[in-house]
Structure formats: C-alpha cells, structure tokens
C-alpha cells in the first residue's frame, strides 16, 4: 500500500537474499580453538602425562603421611588436619574421563590396542583414587548428561573392576589387528609386550593390597609376577626434560627461588636411612642420591608436625636423583614388583623366593639411583650378614619397600597396610588425630555441593579402608 511496485521488488529481493544467507551467516557456533574429534594418540598422550602429574600431586601429601617428607612449617596437613586433595580429585577424574573416551572411540575405530592401554591406565588411576578415598564413583561415572550425579561404588567393587580392566587390557593387547596401531606415546612407546607386563605388575600390586582378605591368593599373584617386569628397563615411568621439568624439580625451584616451601625430608626417613634401625646400622648409600648433607657433613630430618631443627635439615636439592630436571616420575617399578613378590612369597611360605626377591628389590632400587657397584655390594653384604631367608619378616620387606617407594603414593598404601609399624615411627607432633594414624583422605567439597545424595557420610580420617580391615567383607 505504502510502497510502489519498484520498492516492493527491492524489499522482496532483499528478503530473499536474506533468507538464503541467514542460516549460513549464523552457523558460526563451533569453537575454532578446540576440536570435537581428537586423535586417540593425542588423548592417550595427555592421559599418560596427567597420570604422572597426579602421582606427584598425591605424593606431595601422602609422603607426609608416609613420613618420607615433613612440612617445613608444621602445616595442618602434616598434622593430620582435614585434607581433601580437591585438585587431585578433579585431575584424576578428568584423566579417567579421557581414558574412558579412548576406550569408547577405540571400539568405534576397531583399535583394541588403544583400548588395552587405556584400560591399564584407567585401572591405575582407579587404584590410586580408591586408595585415597575408599568408595568412589566408577560404574556410573563419565557418562555426562545421562548421569550428572553418579553413585559411589564400594571399594570392593572398585578392586574387582581394576582386575577386570587389567585382564581385559591383556586380551585387547593380544588381538592381532588394530586399525590404529599404537604410536609413540610417552610410556613404553609402541611396545605392546611392555604394556602387558605393566598390566600384570598392576594385577600383582592391587591383588596384594588384599592381603588381609580371605580372597587373597598368593599363588595367583606369583603367576602375575612371573609374567611381569624382569628388570629396571621395564619400569613404567614418564621421563621429563629440560624445559618441561619433573614436578619434584619444581618443588626444589620453589624452595630456592620462589619462597614456596616443600621437599623437606622427614626425620623418620633420615633416621632409617642413617641406619638407626634394627637390621642395618650403616648409612644407606642411597641417601646421598636423595639429599645433601647439612653443615658438618651429617644428615638431619624434620620431625613431622614440628618446625625444622635449628641446626639444619635435609631437603630435596638439585642433586637429588628424584628432582633432576629430566628425572622420571615412577608409576611402577621393577623394584616394587620384587618387593611384592617377596611379600607374597613370604605368605606362600616360600622363604627362599621371598628373600631372593627382597634382595633383588633393594639392588634394583640402588641401580635405579645409580649407586656405585662397590657401595651396593658392601651394603647388600651387610644385609646378608644380618638377615637370612629364615629370619626375614614382612616388616623387613615392607621397610625396604618403603625406602624404594620414596615419593611414590604407593608408599602410604603400604604404610597403612603395615599399620604404621616401622622402626621408630610415631604420629606427627601436635596431631589433629591425637595418637591415631591417618587412614584416608576426605571427600572433596565439590562432591558435597554437586553429588550430595550419593556421597558417603560419616567418614572420618581415622577410618580404615576396606582392604585394611581384616577379613572384613568376605
């Protein structure tokens, strides 16, 4: 009405042009900085890296409890204050989500070798998490919009799942065809055999955690040990490098430059390594690969829960093997496997095998740190003169294993299994829990906010985990 024909035409033309281009014009809602189709290898690389980072993050706290380390300022954590490891929970579930996706994608892409590797790492992270918190979500986890409040599985279920995953992993890796074959992936490269050995090692580790349970079968574990690592070369470890340095190197950096305190060695660890224990009365040659002496040439640790001693104290330094820029973070070592073998053989009443594995475990760790052959030989001969196959005890095995697991979260698991029975060990000074030893990490705040209906209630830090309760569930 208001418009002339000429103008009407223009309007119609304009509307037409608009209608055809509008849809296209608005289709810009895909984030250019991210992808919706990651490669299996890129997901795996970040999962391996995260797995290693989580180990170091966990160890910064659990090695206070295992008394490898002590807080420089008697922190609450060191004194058994409430500890939730909030960032670790997020990191570990993020990592497991990626691994879960690899498993799904590799089914889609017919690439069982990737799913095998992912299952091993998933089992590893699951084990790490359950040994911190006990019951955790797994069977309902990682499913996004379908279940935003996953239920918690009991630790017993989690352990069954770990073993199931590890068995499946071996089966997957045994398959001959994988559309995408394994590539260089930071750990073990493309070597499927190595991955299988790692899987067996983990089966041995997690089954051995159940030593207080009726289901414990030493013979089965020993079979897994036999299929597993045969030397330090098989160690599951992630090497760091100059520029992308080992997390413990960063702790030392903090100590020297940034005013962030950490890496103080516990008095318990120093006194054990100085030989102030029942079986050896000599300085352990490994100590100088771990820390430097204080003024006067001696070693001194910080008592957990107390400020560092006035006359000096040992910390991780730039000379520590563990804190070298390119040092690896150890996920699981041949040396640990030998101690597992020693313990299991001991329970299987095969004392000879136990003793041999015990000595091999110590030797493997010494070689790992680069202890000189003659020093090693002297130390081993000292042990041989003190302990024999017949006099060997589980406590002896676990003491040496505790040393070999320096800065590894697995150390605290053993310490709890061993009920904190190490020569001279006592609870930290001014402990929040009095004379009681700490047994678990509290659930994170984020779970209380977002998954309240499922989170287990009434859990205290002094409550033992399921595997530490004698014959508990079965």
């Amino acid at each position, binding site marked *: 009405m208001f418009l002339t024909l000429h103008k009407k035409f223009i309007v119609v033309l304009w509307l037409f042009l608009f209608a055809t281009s509008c849809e296209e014009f608005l289709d810009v809602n895909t984030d250019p*900085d991210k992808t919706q189709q990651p490669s299996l290898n*890129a997901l795996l690389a970040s999962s391996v890296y995260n797995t290693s980072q989580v180990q170091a993050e966990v160890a910064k706290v659990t090695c206070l409890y295992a008394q490898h380390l002590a807080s420089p300022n008697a922190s609450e954590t060191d004194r058994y204050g409430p500890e939730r490891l909030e960032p670790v929970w*997020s990191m570990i*579930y993020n990592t497991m989500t990626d691994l879960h996706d690899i498993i799904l994608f590799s089914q889609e892409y017919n690439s069982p070798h990737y799913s095998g590797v992912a299952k091993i790492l998933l089992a590893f992270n699951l084990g790490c998490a359950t040994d911190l918190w006990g019951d955790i979500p797994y069977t309902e986890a990682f499913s996004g919009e379908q279940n935003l409040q*996953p239920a918690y599985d009991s630790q017993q279920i989690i352990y069954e799942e770990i073993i199931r995953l590890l068995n499946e992993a071996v089966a997957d890796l045994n398959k001959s065809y994988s559309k995408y074959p394994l590539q260089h992936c*930071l750990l073990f490269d493309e070597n499927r055999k190595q991955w299988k050995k790692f899987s067996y090692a983990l089966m041995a580790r997690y089954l051995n955690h159940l030593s207080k349970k009726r289901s414990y079968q030493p013979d089965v574990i020993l079979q897994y040990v036999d299929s597993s690592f045969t030397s330090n070369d098989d160690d599951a470890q992630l090497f760091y490098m100059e*520029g992308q340095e080992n997390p413990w190197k960063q702790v030392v950096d903090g100590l020297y430059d940034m005013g962030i*305190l950490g890496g103080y060695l516990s008095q318990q660890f120093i006194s054990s390594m100085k030989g102030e224990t029942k079986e050896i009365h000599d300085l352990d040659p490994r100590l100088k690969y771990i820390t430097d002496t204080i003024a006067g040439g001696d070693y001194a640790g910080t008592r957990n829960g107390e400020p560092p001693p006035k006359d000096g104290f040992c910390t991780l330094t730039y000379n520590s093997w563990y804190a070298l820029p390119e040092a690896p973070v150890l996920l699981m070592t041949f040396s640990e496997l030998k101690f597992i073998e020693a313990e299991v053989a001991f329970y299987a009443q095969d004392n000879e095998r136990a003793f041999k594995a015990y000595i091999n475990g110590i030797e493997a760790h010494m070689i790992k740190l680069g202890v000189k052959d003659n020093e090693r030989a002297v130390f081993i001969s000292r042990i041989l003169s003190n302990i024999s196959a017949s006099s060997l005890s589980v406590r002896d095995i676990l003491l040496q294993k505790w040393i070999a697991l320096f800065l590894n979260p697995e150390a605290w698991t053993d310490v709890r299994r061993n009920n904190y029975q190490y020569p001279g060990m006592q609870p930290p000074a001014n402990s929040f829990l009095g004379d009681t030893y700490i047994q678990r990490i509290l659930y994170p705040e984020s779970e209380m906010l977002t998954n309240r209906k499922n989170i287990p209630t009434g859990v205290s830090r002094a409550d033992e985990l399921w595997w530490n309760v004698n014959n508990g569930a079965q």
Partner: protein
Amino acid sequence: MSFLMKGFICFLLLTSVFPSFSQNRVLIQGNITDKHNNPIENLRVYVKNAAQISTLTGKNGEFELRAPEGSTIVLSGGPMISKYITLRGSHADNMKVIVENAVKPVYISAFNIKKESRNSCHTYYTVSEEEMNRGNQKSILRTLQGKSPGLYVSGSGGAPGHSIRVIMRGENSLNVSADNQPLIVVDGIPFNNYTDPGFGSSENFAFSNRLSDIDPMNVKSVSVMPGASASALYGIKAANGVIHITTKKGRTSKPEFQYTNRLSFEKVSTFPEQQKTYMAGWYGKPNYLSYDFPFHAYGPRGDTVQGAKFYDNLQNFFQKGAKVYNHLSMSGKTEKTSYYGAVSHSTHHGVIHKTKQQGLNIKLNLNYDISDKISLFSYNHFNLKKGNRVPEGNNSEIESGVISQLLYFPTSIDVTDYKKDDGTMKIYTPWLDHPLYVAEKHTLDDEVNRWFNTFGVQYSPLSWLQFDFKYGRDYYTDVRERVLPGPENIARENPLSADGETEQTNISFHHQTTYLLATFNPVTSGRFRLKCITGNEIQKKRYVASNILGRDFDIPGFYHIDNASEIYVRNNTFKQRSVSFFGNVSFSWSDMVYGEITGRNDFSSTLPKQNRSFFYPSAGAAFVFSEIPFIRDNVSENFFTYGKIKASVSMVGKDAEPYRTGIYYRRHPDFPFNNQQGFTKSDNLGSGHLKPETTISKETGLELRFLQNRLTTHLTLYHSVSKDLIIDVPVSHTSGFQTFTTNSGSIENKGVECLLNFRPVNRNTISWDISVNLSKNRNKILSIADGIDRIIMPGTSYSYGGPLYVILEEGKSYGGIYGTSYRRYHPTGNQNEAFREDAPLLIDESGFPVLDQNIKRIGNISPDWLCGIQNELRFHNFSLSFLLDIKNGGDIYNQAEAFFVAQGTSTKTLNRDRYKIFEGMHSDGSPNTSQVYLGQGTDPKTGNNYGDGYYRNIHRKVAENFVEDASWLRLRDITLSWSPKITGQKSLFLKHIDVAVSAGNILLWTNFSGFDPESSQYGAGSNTQGFQGRVTPAVSYVSLQTSVNF
C-alpha cells in the same frame, strides 16, 4: 537536549507575528537559542491549556505555531531561571511565555530516536552535558551515579584507569561468567564495555573497562534506561538495561573553539592503622623459627630493643598521583553541514611507583544534508591508550603482587629501602619480594587502539515516511607485554623469579552492526497520533586473543620471546552473530494518553539451530492526568503543574555465550610435551537443547511536578523475573565434566526508585537545586538446578582469614559471602544451623572460642539501599555543587585486616601479652570464666604453652572477623566554579570562561576499618565482588579546570 538545564537561556521570539485565519489566532514564528546564541533543537513549544497546539523546534531552533492571541506559550523543558527570558515582537506584550521546568524534556530511545519525555511509557533518566562537564574528572559512570536511581556504580580501585562496575536493578543471571552490566550504546551503535582480564597471570593487573575510551568532554547527554524496558528494541544485550550516550554535534553557525585544561592531584584516601609496638619476628624473638631472618610481626616489643624504629609503611609506600588533561574542540554549522571535532590528551601518574596511563582521543562528527530529503552523517572516534601497570595481587598467586607484599610488611622495617647498592632487591625474608622492587621491575605495558565509526543515511521520501540506514563498527586492539625479570647473575642477589618471564597478549575485537529502519507517521495531527517503526538489525562480533609466554632466557636481561627456551602459546577466539527484526507502534490521544507496543524476533548464532529464533513483545501505556479537563480547570497550575502515571510490561529473550552447545577437546596446557601433542576433554558439557532465557519485567511509575516545576518527583516500582537461565551448572567431576550448560534456575529482582528535584531558592542571582535519588533493590535466587542449591563463584576460595567464598544459594539474594565463623553455643550442640551473629560464642575447655569449619553465610555484598544527593548552589557567577553518596548495607571482606592479624601488624594484636576471659558459654551451658593468655608460646604466669597464639591459631582463621559492614556516607565530589560574564560583545575574542576547582572522595564516614571499602579484588568484569584488598586502594583528588570558549 538536556543542556537546557544550563541556567541561562535567551528566548528570542523573532520575525513577525501574523494574523491568523481564526479570529484570535496569530502565527508565531521564532527561534530559540541558548545564551551563546546556539540554536536549541527539539524543544517542545506549546500553548498553555491547548497542548494539542504544539511543535518541536527545528535544527536552527526555529518553530512556528498558531496560538490564540494573548495566550501563554510554554517552553517544555526550559531553563530554571525564567528571569532571563525576554520577549520581542509586535504581539509580545500580549503573549506570555512560561518555561516548563521539565528536568529531562527529551530522552534518547532506541535507535537514537529522540522522544519527548511526555510520550514515554518507560522509566528513563538523563544526564546533561553540563553535568558531564562540570569541571571535575569524573567518568561517565561516576557522573550517572549521582543523577540516576537504580544504578549501583562501584570502583575497583585507585590505579590509573582502574575499571568501574555498574549494575542496574540487580543481577539477573546466575551464570558466574555472565555479563550483568548494562549495554552501552553510543549514538545508536553498541559500544563494548568489557574489562578484559586477559590470560592467566594478567589478571593481576588493573585493567580498564572499555567505556573509559570515551572522553566525557565529548558527551552531550546520557540517557539511562534501567531494567528490561528498553530491551524490546535494543534486543538481547539490553536485558540488563541500557546506557545511551549521545556525543556532541556542531550547533553554532559560527565556528566555535573550546579549550579545556585540567590539572589534578590524587592520593590514597584512607589508610588502615597498623600497630607500632612489636617488631618483626616470631614468639617474641627477632627471627622466625630456626631461621636467621624475621617473618611476621610477632617479634619483641620495640621498647626493649636498642635502636628500634617504626615506620608508616603504608603511607610511605604510596606516592602522590597527578593527571594533566587537555582538550580542544571545534564545532560549527553551515546551512547544510555541521561538524564537531575534538582532540584530547591526558597523562596520569598513579599512586604506585611507576604506574602511569596516557590517552589520546580524537573525535569527528559530521552531518551533511544533501537535500531536504536525504542527509548523511558520520561519527568517528579514535583513541589510543597506553598504560604502565604493576602486578597488584588480585589473583591467587599472592606472592607476586605488590599490594600483597606490602600487606605482609612489618612496621619495624622501612619499606622505602628496597634496593641494595648493586641495584638488586633488598629483602628481609627470602620468602617475600619487596613491593617497591616488584612495582619497579615486574611490569606490564599495554596499548589500546580503538576506532569507533558510525555512518548513516536518512531518507525521507514523503512527509510521513522516513528510512534510516546505519552502519557501526567498533574495533580495537589491545596489546599487552609483561616482563618478570629473572636473575641478573649478580652475587647474593634475590631474583624475582627463577627463570624470568615475558608474556605477550594480543587482543582484537571487532563488532559490526547495521540497522535499516522505516518510520511511518500516518497520523500526525489532530487528537489521535500514530507512529510506526519497523526495522532490521544485523550484528557480527569477533574476538581474537592470543598469548605467548616465554620463560628461561639464555641472554640475561633480554626478555624477548626469541630468547626464551620455554614457550607456551594460548588462543581464545569467538564469533557471535545475530539477525533481528522488530517493530514498534506508538500512539497518543489528546496529549493525555500514550501507548506503545513493540515486538522483536532475534536469530542468534549461539543457540542450537532449532531454538535459534525467538520472539518477545512489550507493551506500555501512560496517562497524563494533569491534562484531564477537570483537573486543568480546577487545580492551579502554579501549584500542580504536571502529573503522569505509566505502566509497562516487557519480555526479553537472551541467548547463550558462544560455543555452549557442544562437547570439545582442548589442548592440554602443558603440551606439546616431548614433541607430542596432547588433548583432553573440556570441563564444560554443552547442551544441544539450549533455548533462550527469558526475563519478564513489569514497572509502573508516577511523575509529579509542582510549583511551576520547582519540585518534581519521579517514583518507579519494578519487578522482574528471569527464568530458564542459561547456567554453567556445577556438576560432579565424576560425570566427566565440571560444569553443564543448561537452562535452569530463575532469579527475581524487585525494587523502588525515587527521584526528587527541588529548587528551594529561586531568585535572580541566587538559586539552590537539590536532586535526591534513592533506590532499593531486593534480589532473590528462586531456584538453581535439580540437586544443586549452591554455585560457588570462581576466584573466591583464597583468603588469608580462612576459606571464604561468594556463593549463589537458592532462596537467598545474589552474592552472599560464605566463610568460617566462631561456633555458637547451642543447647543441643547442633552445628549445622545457620549463622547466628547474636548468639553467645561457644568456648572450649581451654578457654578459647572455637572455629566453625562449616562454611556459613556470614555476609551479603548487595547494599540494602543507595542514595545520591546532588546539591547545586548558584550565586551570581559562582556555582557550588556537591554530591553526597550514601550506601546502606553491603558487606565487604577486609582482606588487609586479615593479613595484618596473620602477620601481627593489626592493632587488634596489641593485646598479645595480655590475658582475657572470652565471653561465651561452655557446651554444658555454663558461662566461661577461664582466663587465657593471648600471646605466643609460654604464658609467663602459668607456664602453659599457647603455641602460635590466639591470633594465629584462631582469630585469623575465622572469616567472620573480617567481613564488615561497608555502609558509607561520602562526599563523592565537590566543585566550585566561576564563569564571569564576558562583556563587550562581538569585539571580544573570548566568548566564555569557566574556572572550576573540585575535589573528590575527600570525606568518608564508614565503620569499615580497612582502606576505602570501594575497591575490589576482581575487576569490573567479574561477578565476584565484595572482596576488598590486594589492589591499589581508592584515591581522593583535587583538580583545577579552566575552560575557554572563543
């Protein structure tokens, strides 16, 4: 048009008055100008008691009107001093002129359409040119603060260019990252007001909100449209309200120049007190634990140590700031063209060593009438801003920040002594850096280049039809370069970092908008009038930011990426587009009843395809009841001049942020690692089912004017509910994600706004104007999400005084402060009850109060009500204006005090060698009677060991101790100006001089014990407010401004 507020206006009724057709009517033609002979456009002129005989003045201030002889002609929105109006012409003696004292006669509605205030069905407030340029250094937002109710303006700190946050009628989003601030529109085109924190560690620095790119001196007027009322026409982004800025255009026939110079000085306004009795140290000893250096200020008493000295370290640390500002403008007008051009420059040195900001602003506005039917315009803005900033310590890396380091500093060590002879840093404890050294060496230089251009064509083929086309482009780049030095390889140096760091951030933002409008005026005369607008808007936005971080340098001192051995790259890009169609129909009947209906359909790129189109309407009506014949005839106009009641309902849709509809995998930040790439699943779970969120707001208002407009009041009630909010709901990390973007939750805001203008004194040479605005907003979070009743705001978990969060909780108002408290006595021992401030403290067997680790709501950041009282007194050529700013309620976390208690510099800790019986009850209900020692270590009387002492063990961990009521009354600013009359007329070169002395933020009454409570740990762009502390404290200033027109 609101520069009509300016006191003096000459009204010239020129040319002739012709006899008219009807018996008593005469044709009146005239021009209206201000005292500088500048024509006044769009002024409503009407005949009293016959308001239908009305017109608006044209571009040259001209008008014509057929009025009954002898009637009264009313200038709507005229000046307050009618004395200065003169009438000329043959019928002048018969005509009476009164000036209707409408405070805001015309406002700018959507698309830069000027509307008469009478027509408005919605609430709006305006600020005039005069108020913008009053002679002080206020920013645009600050100027609005005193004049417009419903605005909550809060500064984030006193560094040059520090961002300012503004919220209108409360927050209406639950998304932690949502922009709750209003849309800024400049000459009809959206203007980005983002406060960009950049990447990671850049958050440490005081960046500006981008509205500060506009020079207030170039602003003609500002219209504020709070709530969702304006959004039916401005669309999605206006859901939080709109601030419309109109820049100056050429208006005088002769070229006019104006030069303005301003010089101002500033200093930190308020300092908290620190104790000067105890020296640095621990347990009464001068060293910390077994170390040979001190830490904390729990050392020996100064009077027991030879040569002990104490310093005013807070005062000594800050310097005086200064700012020089110069502005030159030229404007003019010919028959077909008008132009306004301005250039300004400012240099601003901040109160912290080495901080500085410089700005260059160029403005050119051109209008050209090709013919009667077609006109063109082009408004152009360019500015360059350079800043030198220091890390203040707003983020969790507290060790690195200047203010954090300062708050740690004991009073027994001189803070001004910061360098050793070899130029390296002097420190008293190896764990802390020296604040002055950090300010000097850890630097961030930034440079913003911004172009804001608008081009438009106006075509009116017929008298009742007009087309408008407008294209606007907002483009800026922001380049930031940060250098954190590493070691210089000098013996025994204390480097700021182990390896050194350099970081380059490049940000570019590009926003294009086009409008095509058709305006129909099918009925323009008679009692019933109708106007229709229909139009289309297309928006295209692109943001690209990249960041390169380099560490570990080969050549010492050469902090360049090429010299770094570790390099990290990050990118952040987004694109956002929308297409909209809208229409508006407005009508009026007999200048008494007004109505308006709008509808808008948006198509947004950020929603899933099936939900990307959404429609929302609004409707409003107004009734000018003073026009009712009965009232007009029976109530004296000298008493009751004008009365209007209005009501409106609006709905607004709002889209999502970009990229919230998918699941993504991002590069792991530590990769590439060992030459390999690593990807990990993003923390956010997007939803393919997102739909737009909606806000429905209702408002009703009453406007009354009395005593020939000497007293006007404006009362507005509003209520808005936003629902289907698009929220990143926190979810259990075990689900594989940390947040899930979904439509969930709703939030309600309701409140009252009141504006009162009064002129108690109105004489020839003396006048006094008071303007009072009052607003109260009540906010309630109605729901969040299934199974989720709390959202923790990011960046809040760190505090020195114990865990502290800003949390959104169902059933509560926005922005509660949650933290640890003292456990209260409860007969049943219940620990989960809500925080009860008045209940007696629970005292344990040792005689101390007990820390309650459960996080409880211990404060609320939102103020109860806000009030601004602006006064203006004129006496001859002098005028004095001042603004009182009152904020009632609103808690703030006093972070400085938390540091001081922890460090032992707080005056509270002075009783550390005393004894105390804490008032409270034991768990068995008996009152506490045991006396305890407040110091560290062993009590000299009893030999009991108190460890680190009460203040370290308990007091500092109780966040309750540091959350304080931050109500205030402050003299926001005061300005005395002098504008002598220039006599001698045309021969004189000068036309006008104005000299103004002003001071700002000089008086503050508050119970808050820290620095000025108006500063925020997080910038204006963050919704986490209420944390005061580790930023440059607010400043007070004095300035002298001289302005010359020639």
